């Protein structure tokens, strides 16, 4: 299988604080990898580093192409797209225009033609992406006419509409109820089947364990475990990171019982 993302030795410092230490991570074409860890483990920092929003040391490459020195928009144009924990929609644009910003990248010539012909913002890719999150009816609404959960899904659709090589999803299910979250999981799964590589940050353990091919666990900026959902679920270090050592003890006892 082709390796879409290859990150090795990625470290990020904020002042004197080491937010990320020597993280290695690969995502293959069509693979859905979960990235989990307690609050403050460095998950969002990792996404920031990959997408060009945080300075890092180490190497990151997409489809074998090194991204060193590239600005955020250049990375995005190589197919590295992300969603945001805090949604970050363009509040001044309609839902379909929100998707169009990333997916329609007009050449100067096309931009000049745009000035004369009054063509709709929508394209098939945009409509497909909206249908995928069942928000086709909202295409012409403004983001602040939607609920928080719907806004989150628009964020996901905006990422999908760019037809990315690698999609980095930062807590896309926050604000969704259980049924919606399961539905989102199924749709991400089918996108992965279609060949998109995905890295999913999520606190909803049901979702992560249910849909991911592999899971990587971060704690204090370091990878403490990686493997299939089953392996990670049983890893004592992971249980300890999530529940504390006393909790881990109890969990271990309950497993034994």
């Amino acid at each position, binding site marked *: 299988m082709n390796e879409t993302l290859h990150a090795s030795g990625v470290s990020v410092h904020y002042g004197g604080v080491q937010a990320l230490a020597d993280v290695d991570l690969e995502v293959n074409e069509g693979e859905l990898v979960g990235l989990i860890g307690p609050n403050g483990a460095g998950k969002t920092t990792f996404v920031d580093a990959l997408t060009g929003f945080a300075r890092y040391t180490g190497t990151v490459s997409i489809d074998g192409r090194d991204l060193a020195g590239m600005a955020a928009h250049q990375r995005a144009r190589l197919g590295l797209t992300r969603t945001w*924990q805090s949604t970050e929609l363009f509040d001044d644009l309609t839902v379909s225009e929100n998707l169009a910003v990333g997916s329609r990248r007009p050449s100067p010539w096309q931009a000049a033609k745009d000035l004369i012909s009054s063509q709709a913002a929508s394209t098939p890719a945009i409509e497909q992406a909206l249908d995928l999150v069942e928000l086709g009816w909202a295409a012409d609404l403004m983001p602040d006419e939607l609920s928080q959960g719907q806004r989150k899904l628009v964020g996901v659709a905006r990422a999908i509409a760019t037809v990315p090589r690698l999609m980095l999803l930062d807590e896309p299910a926050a604000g969704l109820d259980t049924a919606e979250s399961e539905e989102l999981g199924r749709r991400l799964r089918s996108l992965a089947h279609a060949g998109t590589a995905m890295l999913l940050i999520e606190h909803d353990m049901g979702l992560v364990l249910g849909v991911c091919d592999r899971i990587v666990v971060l704690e204090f900026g370091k990878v403490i475990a990686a493997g299939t959902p089953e392996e990670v679920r049983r890893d004592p270090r992971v249980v300890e990171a999530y529940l504390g050592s006393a909790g881990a003890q109890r969990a271990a006892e309950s497993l034994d019982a």
Partner: protein
Amino acid sequence: MQQVLLFVLLGLGSGALIACIALAVVLTYRGAGIINLASGALAMLSGYTFWSLTSGQYGGVEFATAPALVLTFVITLLFGALIELVAFRPLRNAAPLAKLVSSLGVLLVAQASMVLAFGVTQKPQKSVLPSGTVHVFGTTVPVDRFILAGIVIAMAVALTLVYRFTRFGLATRAASESEPSALLAGLSANGLSLANTLLACVVAGTLGVLAASVTQLDAISLPLLVVPALAAALLARLTSFAIACVAGLGIGIINSLVDYFSTKSWFPTDHGVPLPGVKELIAFLLIVVAMFLRGAALPARGELVERRLPEVPRPGRVALPALGLALVCAVALIVLPFDFRQALINSMIGTIMALSLVVVTGYVGQISVVQLSLAGVAGFAVSHMAVDAGIGFPLAPLAGTAAAVVLGVLTAVSALRVRGVSLAVVTLGAAVAISQFGFVNSTWGGGDTGSPVPEPHLFGLDLGPHSAFRGLDGGLPSPVFGWVVLAITLALCLLVAGIRRGGLGMQMLAVRSNERAAAAAGTDVRAVKLTAFAISAFIAGVAGTLYAYNFGSVSDERFDALTALSLIAFAYVGGVTLISGALFAGLISTEALFPHAFDKWLGISGNWFLLFGGVILIFTLIQHPEGVAGAIYKRLHPRRGPGVPSSGATPSLAARRASPSAAVER
């Protein structure tokens, strides 16, 4: 050397005035979150109050100094309370641009009313301070300079102590850090804002009364002292009273030294007079240095409500209504009497100027005061190319517009680091410097008389206002020129509408909404901003060349900083995000149809119109923050509520307003 020392000490007088205005700027920013462009006007208000009390011009009673001082103090407080309650408090949660424009409204009202009441000539202010002299290092210096500097330093020290050690100061600092937590702690943001505005009025007013005797009391230069004061306040990062005070005194000293050096033979001259505008250029350079030295962003305030510019709806079918309107105008240009024909042409050029703001402010969210100066550059280029080099139409206007674009892109390069209200301050400084250093200069500007512009000819056809065809009444200007302006206005309106509909417009609005998310979506934020500034400068340059042909000459008054500020006011009242807003802005701009009709039928002209304009500006800001055109659009297109048809999620106020703020949880 003694001469230099003398001028350094003399500079303490105007330095004290600049310093106290800088203190007032810092106070209003910390208390109310407003960059108060009217800070210089506050000093002027108190100065005039004291002058009219002591001279007996109003009320017929000549007050003695002491009671006049007390009365001036009381009236200053009343002015402060009025400004706070009418112009600042209702806009607490408005967009930064709205707040800035509101203070601009205060400036326009204060200035217009003072000119109406007292005229434009300087008034000899009665001196309150002792008039003796002291000998310092062998030179004789009036003692009042030391007293003035002493008063300002004392005020800066007192303010620093109050802010550091009293409950009031602590509360203000807390509220400017985070308004929500201040509210939770039981502090009244309104009360704090009022107290700080009053303090600012007293600080500026004190020197307005005292320093006016050593500098001057007039309604033009005093309000514009806010520009060097802003430079001082920015060096102080809008927080430190001490730095603002020292920087203000320093600028005063530098200005005084410029006065001294300009008497020297080595000082560059322009037709025998010392080069004008050097002080303004220095103030601008200081603002630029302050921005780059002290970090680009002003300290942000933690506010309760996230503030946004008005929305920018996607224009529907514009071609047909535009053509219809253009047809009406084309006929009107023949039918209308000559004075209304001229006013209509002025309205169209005003519309083009406002369009340039729609692109840069409405679409990309950057506040640029320098647009009118860019128009001026294009206008003067047309004039000088014709007069000095014999280059005429159509090469000269093209080259002039190109010059405007180059300068606009240079501005944009600074806008890459500086944004929002900071950019407004930088561009205000640039506008003053370009006007005073560039346009007043008689070699490369217009000098006292203005610079002539010949008629535009194309293939032997006169396209200018003196063309042979003179409409129904046979008067000037010719409808032919009006048609040229109309065609250009129509084309530019369609261009700006097309930008909004196309991919570029979406990227501009994406940048305006959220620069980080725009970059993550593959938008090159820098390129988009540069493009927007270039397009906007192009539009302004076109307007500038039309200005030049319209009046047959270019002069500095038409492009000065106060006119630039009122242009922004007009554009905002019209609706700075909409093309229809630009049309409305054109109608109410200087010498356009509305002012002309008011003048002709109601006898309201010049400063009266500015006064009304300022009042209407503040009223519009409060009632319809999206401008007149925006208000009409909203009425025609009511919004749906959140979450229809809901797929399980309940629409709630929290969901509706919980929007992406800059605070991204890491």
